[in-house]
């Protein structure tokens, strides 16, 4: 059997929608388990009092990264068939900045706000309405920003390609960085907690 299954025609479009629902249920389940239905917990990341966002995000990234790497090394998965969003550097940098501001102002990102809304968080529901409004605004101003939207195109490009470093070495380095980051995060949280206890 070869992965990705869908790309090898193991099932069709209709079944892929069932898969979408199941994968989404798993996604939402773990987001809620992590505490990402709470804007207070999410926002605490940006005041250094609770670094759960960083810990969960990077554990997820290195888990999937290592998994993808080994599955391609043993020949189970064809990585070239996994969809990679093309890079447009400048709009992604500016978009990321705007999104970051929206994260701390609104308290959620789109995925976490879905989980917040379905667990009764009213701020999550209002936030979602804001997302919908923001996308509508973007759609309406699209003719004005379309040239910026397609500026600095770099195509489908990865860090191993751009750095010339072997894929496996980069996996190793990112895992190492993440582990260092986790140790740092635990240290910062303890420091902040003792600072709070003193105050």
């Amino acid at each position, binding site marked *: 059997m070869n992965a990705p299954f869908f790309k090898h025609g193991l099932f069709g479009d209709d079944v892929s929608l069932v898969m979408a629902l199941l994968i989404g249920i798993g996604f939402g389940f773990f987001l809620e388990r992590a505490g990402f239905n709470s804007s207070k917990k999410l926002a605490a990341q940006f005041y250094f009092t609770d670094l759960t966002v960083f810990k969960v995000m990077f554990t997820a990234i290195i888990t999937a990264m290592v998994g993808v790497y080994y599955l391609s090394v043993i020949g189970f998965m064809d990585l070239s068939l996994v969809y990679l969003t093309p890079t447009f550097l400048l709009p992604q940098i500016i978009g990321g900045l705007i999104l970051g501001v929206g994260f701390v102002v609104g308290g959620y990102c789109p995925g976490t706000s879905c989980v917040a809304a379905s*667990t009764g968080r009213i701020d999550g529901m209002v936030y979602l309405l804001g997302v919908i409004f923001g996308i509508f605004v973007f759609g309406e101003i699209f003719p004005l920003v379309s040239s910026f939207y397609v500026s600095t195109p770099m195509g489908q490009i990865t860090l191993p390609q751009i750095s010339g470093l072997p894929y496996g070495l980069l996996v190793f380095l990112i895992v190492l960085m993440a582990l260092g980051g986790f140790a740092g995060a635990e240290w910062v949280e303890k420091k902040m907690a003792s600072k709070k206890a003193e105050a």
Partner: protein
Amino acid sequence: MTTESLKQAQPYWNPYVAGLGLGLVLLASFVIMGRGLGASGAFSSLVTVGVQAVAPNHVANNEFYSEYIGGGTRSPLKDWLVFEVLGVFVGGFISGLLANRVTKVVEKGPNISNAGRLTLAFLGGGLMGIGAKLARGCTSGQALTGGALFNVGSWAFMMMVFGGAYAAAYFVRRQWR
């Protein structure tokens, strides 16, 4: 055990355990579908359907909307990301229900009114919608998915998300603390 303690919300999972679960879901999505997770894209489909219902010509003449219309052979809502996001709502609800964490509440710090918090929630959501479209994805589609695939644009995006949020945190601190 009393009913009182039964109804009490359980603590969240250890972040590394939850992160491992999330990573395995993402890996499963790569293996099964050949694509990662997403969230904001589903709302683009929703917005497109809404605008199309009111002004179909407007949608046809707008490159952003027309991308979400697709070939026009089936509803834009019969879309992979739309179904995935429906699942996110369901999965979050199931997890919350099992841990007694489904509560009607406005999450905020003690120094801001409900109305103030909800105004900022809407504003932040609006910025998020615009930013996510400009960046071709949000925390799910770019940071998580692209991050795991070493996507250059996703890593640049992820650094900027943290940069933007930390830079703005001071100005909205009264909302949370």
